[in-house]
Structures are given as structure tokens and as C-alpha cells.
């Protein structure tokens, strides 16, 4: 049974599409790794609200912090913040390559298609693109890029005039992409995160708990599929529930009795997002301890620095975790487990609620520690959860090693 599953996974791994996706991730990995470094340096070390910046007052004494922050910001915005653009090019290029066709043309067509899809003329005539689609819409980019590429390839095989072979697919892709753009305009206006916060405010504690757990699972599934979910990003501490909690905590001088105990901030961001989605830092530790595959270990080594500050892009692309069926299960189970345990501790009044604001990029278990204004049991719980999380990831790391070994064997035959 396990063997069949192994064989099946290995075969899926060797299909054209999977191979093109994997090649795209390989292309993206170094770019996004450095982008992740830049993002971490800017937002955690140099930005006034960043963790390291706050802890060590870096923004006050560090020379040229603004200039360095600017440089890092530019790098971040042009890499991770536009990740989907690279993905659209990559998938289109490598799909063409898989079919033994000219990659550059298909790549450019894919790029063009995605630029058109995400164009949103908001500011006075300057090219302006949907931030959501650019930074969190990698799945869409892969789909758009893949189909653009397939279309371009199919024309290359046809019998029509040589000029038309290129012009016609580009024309069709342009038109379809523009129509997609029109359709997406109305869809992207939803303010999901604030809606989540207001749901929590409106409903009973138990309903809110189920809702937060559900939304947490949804966020991780979407994140595994390279789409931004309802809880993506850092907690803002300015939504109604957080404001209410913070006000109550400041009023009474502690955070034991706050009105909204189970929210995305108190559970998801405080306990289920160490190192980014899917408790990524636990996967890194698990790989470094248990994996024998050199490439995986290298990627994990490189990803430690950003992941400490909850930046997970490098791991998502490098391992890759994205679309990887092996890691889907722990990627969902681990954060869910953390949230449930934390909720139990909260409901039993063993720990206070994380109600105070936490700086950007605070490392894993320290989030809830700062959020509760230094409750030691909360810190110990966080560390304990992290250990369990590593153990949960362990068998999946082993499985992943075996599958890539198997896939290698099939390829060789």
C-alpha cells in the first residue's frame, strides 16, 4: 500500500506539468530567498515596528538605516511582492521546454498574459497592478502561464503562416487575459480579514473558536496552494476584536479577562504561525535533524534566517512545500493542533490571552510571550508545541526523502 502510494507520488512528480512547476520553483528559489532576506532586514531590523528594531532600538542609532531600508525595500517589492510575475514567466517557459519547444516566446506570452490579468489602473496613468494578484496570486499566475504556454505551443505545431504562428496566440492570450482582468475587478474588492474580525465580535465564543480554527485551516490550505488566505500577513492589532481585547487588558492591567478570547490574533498568529504558514520553523528543524537529502538540508540552512522572523517563502519554494502532497497533511494538522491546544489552555484559564501588540517578525514562541506581557507558562507552552510540531513533521520528512529517491529511480529507467 505504502509502496503503491510511493510509486504513484513519484509518477505524478515526473509528469510534464509537475516537472515544469518544480523547475519554476527552482528558478524562483534563489530570487525569493534573497528577497526574503531583504524583506526581513527591512521590516524586522530597520522598520520602526520591526522586532529587532524595537528590541535593540536599531531605528534610533543605526547609521543610514533609512537608506539601507530603502534599498532592501526596493529589492523586496521587486521580488517577493511580485512573485506571481516570475511564476507566470517560469511556468510558461518550462512548459514549452517540456514539450521541446522554444521557451522564450512562451515565457514572454505567459508574462504578458499575467501582466494584463493583474493590471488595475488606479493611479494617474502609471502602470499599476493588483497587489493581491502580484504578491499572493501565484496559483493564478501558474494557471495563466501554463495555459498561455500550451496555447502558444499548439500554434507552433499547426500548419499556418509563420508570422501568424506567433501573432495569433499572442492576440488570443491578450484578449482572454483582458477579459479575465475585467472579471477579477469585482472579485477582489472583498475585505476578508476585517470580516473575520467582525465575525468574532458578533458571535458567541464557541462559534468564534470554530470559525477561527476553520479559517486557520483554510488559510493554510490556500497558502499551500500559493494563494493568500484570510489570515495571511501579520496581525494588525487594529481590528475591532484586538482593540477591544487590548482596551480591556489595559484597563484591568492584565490580559486574563478580555472580551474576545478566540480570534486570529490570540490563536492563529500567536501559536500557529511560527516561522510562517504551517509552522515552517518546525519543518526546518525536522529536516535538519532527520533528513539525509543534501539539497533539502541546504535549502533549510539557507531558510533559517528569514524563517526565524516568520518569513517562509524560501522554504515554500525551495523544498518545495507548495503543491507538495507529502507536506499537505502536516502543513494543516500542525497549526490546527497548536491552535486547539492553546484554546484548551485558554479555556481552562491556565494562560492569559495574547492581547498586547507584538512587533513585526517576532520569532515563534515569543509572539504569545510578548502578547501576554511576559507570561512564562505561555512561553513554555509555545516551546513545547514547537517540539511536538517537529515530531509531527518527522515521518513526513522521511517520506519525502523516500519519494524523491523513488522518483529518481523511475527517471533513470
Amino acid at each position: 500500500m505504502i509502496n503503491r502510494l510511493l510509486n504513484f507520488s513519484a509518477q505524478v512528480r515526473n509528469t510534464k506539468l509537475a516537472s515544469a512547476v518544480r523547475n519554476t520553483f527552482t528558478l524562483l528559489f534563489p530570487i525569493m530567498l534573497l528577497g526574503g532576506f531583504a524583506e526581513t532586514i527591512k521590516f524586522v531590523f530597520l522598520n520602526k515596528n520591526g522586532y529587532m528594531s524595537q528590541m535593540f532600538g536599531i531605528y534610533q542609532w543605526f547609521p543610514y538605516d533609512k537608506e539601507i531600508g530603502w534599498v532592501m525595500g526596493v529589492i523586496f517589492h521587486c521580488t517577493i511582492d511580485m512573485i506571481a510575475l516570475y511564476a507566470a514567466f517560469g511556468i510558461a517557459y518550462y512548459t514549452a521546454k517540456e514539450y521541446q519547444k522554444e521557451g522564450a516566446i512562451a515565457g514572454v506570452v505567459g508574462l504578458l498574459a499575467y501582466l494584463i490579468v493583474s493590471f488595475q489602473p488606479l493611479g494617474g496613468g502609471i502602470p499599476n497592478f493588483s497587489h493581491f494578484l502580484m504578491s499572493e496570486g501565484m496559483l493564478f499566475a501558474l494557471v495563466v502561464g501554463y495555459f498561455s504556454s500550451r496555447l502558444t505551443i499548439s500554434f507552433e505545431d499547426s500548419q499556418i503562416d509563420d508570422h501568424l504562428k506567433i501573432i495569433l496566440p499572442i492576440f488570443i492570450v491578450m484578449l482572454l487575459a483582458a477579459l479575465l482582468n475585467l472579471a477579477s475587478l469585482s472579485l477582489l474588492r472583498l475585505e476578508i480579514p476585517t470580516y473575520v474580525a467582525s465575525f468574532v465580535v458578533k458571535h458567541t465564543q464557541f462559534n468564534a473558536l470554530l470559525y477561527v480554527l476553520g479559517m486557520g485551516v483554510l488559510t493554510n490550505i490556500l497558502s499551500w496552494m500559493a494563494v493568500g488566505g484570510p489570515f495571511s500577513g501579520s496581525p494588525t492589532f487594529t481590528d475591532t476584536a484586538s482593540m477591544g481585547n487590548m482596551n480591556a487588558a489595559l484597563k484591568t492591567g492584565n490580559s486574563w479577562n478580555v472580551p474576545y478570547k478566540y480570534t486570529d490574533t490570540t490563536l492563529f498568529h500567536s501559536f500557529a504561525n511560527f516561522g510562517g504558514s504551517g509552522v515552517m520553523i518546525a519543518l526546518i528543524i525536522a529536516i535538519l535533524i532527520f533528513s539525509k537529502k543534501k539539497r533539502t538540508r541546504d535549502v533549510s540552512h539557507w531558510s533559517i534566517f528569514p524563517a526565524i522572523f516568520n518569513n517562509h517563502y524560501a522554504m515554500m519554494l525551495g523544498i518545495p512545500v507548495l503543491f507538495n502532497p507529502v507536506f499537505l497533511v502536516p502543513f494543516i494538522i500542525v497549526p490546527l493542533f497548536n491552535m486547539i491546544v492553546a484554546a484548551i489552555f485558554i479555556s481552562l484559564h491556565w494562560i492569559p490571552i495574547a492581547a498586547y501588540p507584538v512587533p513585526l517578525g517576532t520569532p515563534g514562541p515569543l509572539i504569545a510571550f510578548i502578547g501576554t506581557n511576559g507570561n512564562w507558562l505561555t512561553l513554555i507552552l509555545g516551546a513545547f508545541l514547537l517540539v511536538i510540531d517537529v515530531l509531527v513533521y518527522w515521518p513526513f520528512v522521511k517520506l519525502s526523502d523516500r519519494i524523491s529517491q523513488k522518483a529518481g529511480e523511475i527517471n533513470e529507467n
Partner: protein
Amino acid sequence: MAVVLIFVSLGWSHQNVNDLSKLRNSKLSPVIMIPGSSATENRFDTLVKKLNKNNRNPHSLIKIQVSTEGKLHFTGQLKKGDTEPVFVVGFANNHDGYDNIKKQAKWFNLAFKAITKQYNFNNFKAIGHSNGGLIYTAFLENYYSQYADQITIKQLMTIGSPYNFNEKSVQHKTQMLSDFIQNRSKIPKNLSVYFVAGTETYNSDGLVPLGSVMAGKYIYQGQVKHFTTISVSGSDAQHSDLPQNDQIIDLINRYILDPKKLPQNQQGAISMDGQ
């Protein structure tokens, strides 16, 4: 290393909570807006956008929709450092008519109570467009007294509010206007009130007769500290355009909002908000 971070974090956390407790005492002074009939809590989006244009400390926009069962749905967030957020209270049932205005005043009271609990403030400014002004009047006469000790209403601006519905002349008082006049003594005395009327023709903004707007003086004039009437004409003076009329936005900036701090010399160098 980890131990160092833990203790640095602990120290920072204590310091931060200390600062926040201090900050909690520096209170907000929000602007609370009510749209007119058939309009939703999104009615003032353009107005707020225009107010925030070239503003270094933009106003947050927090919207509340009250369902017919009195449940509240919040959207939007308070921006860090903003002491003058804009709240807009809209109603799922936003129909016209005196009976509905009474209901809406009751619903507004629920939203107002929630805002006072969630956010800390001891004064606020009020703006009502069209029926929103009537809802405010009903609120001030019937509900405000329970807050009056803690929370001061500083200014009220009603924009094109038909105090006598569609009646041009005060000879014919509607039931609502009679009720408002009868209970006027409950309106706080230290309030400054601004009536803004749009005039597309000489006696109407295309929907509400000027006489109906001005009939409101029998409620407020002599009861409140300052009472000013202003009529605007020109482009965007039609009833529905009033909330985005540039002259009215100017009036709001001048009379309703807190005076702005003088802008500091902007440095041309670097300011980037990547968040």
C-alpha cells in the same frame, strides 16, 4: 542567544504595555457620520477619500452596519497614530419615513454604545447627510442624555436634512417636526450646529426644499450655543452630490474637524511604507 532574546523581549513588553497604558489616556475625538435614506455605510467613502487627500495623518474609516435585529457588523480599522477616526453608521433597513427614523435612531444608539465601549473618547463630532441629520436629531433628543456626563458632542453638521420632509413652508408642520420642536430642550446647550443646504434652484437642491432644511432652525436656534446656516450652489449642489461637494468638504475641514497641526517641512528624502 535565545535567552537574551527572551529577556530583551520581556523588558520591551513591560515597557510597551506601560507606554500603551499612558496612550490609552490620550483619547480619540472621532467624527461619526450617518448617511441618508437608501444609502449604506459606504456613502461617505468619497468624502473621506477627499478629506484624506494630501493629509499626512489620514483619518481611519470604520464602518458599522446595524441589522434590523440590532446586530453590528464592523469593517475597517483604526490606523496607528490617528486620533480622529471617521465612523459611519449605516442601517440594513435604510428606508424613509418618520417611523423608520425613530427605529434608525434606536439602532444608531446601539452602534454608538458599541463604539464608546470599543474606543476611548470623551468627545465627538457629528455629521448627518439628508435623513442622517434627522436621525441625529432624534438621537440627541431621545438617547444622548445617558452619555452626556462622559461624552460631549462638539459639533453637529447636517447636510440637506429635510426637517419638514417635503413641505416647503413651516405653516404645515409634519408630525416629526412638531415632535422635534417639542423635545428641543433635551438637545445639549453647548453644541455648535451647522446646517448646510444645497441649492440647485433658488429654493431646492433638486430633492429637498430649502424651506424644509431651514425649518430645522425652530429646533436648534436659541437652544444651542452656535447655530449657523450655509447654502452652497454651483457644481455638485444636487442633493445626492452634497457629500462629495468640494465646498462642503472645505466646510467640514474648517468647522468640524480638529485644527490640523502645521505641516512640518517635508524632507524630500525617503519615506516608504511597504506594509
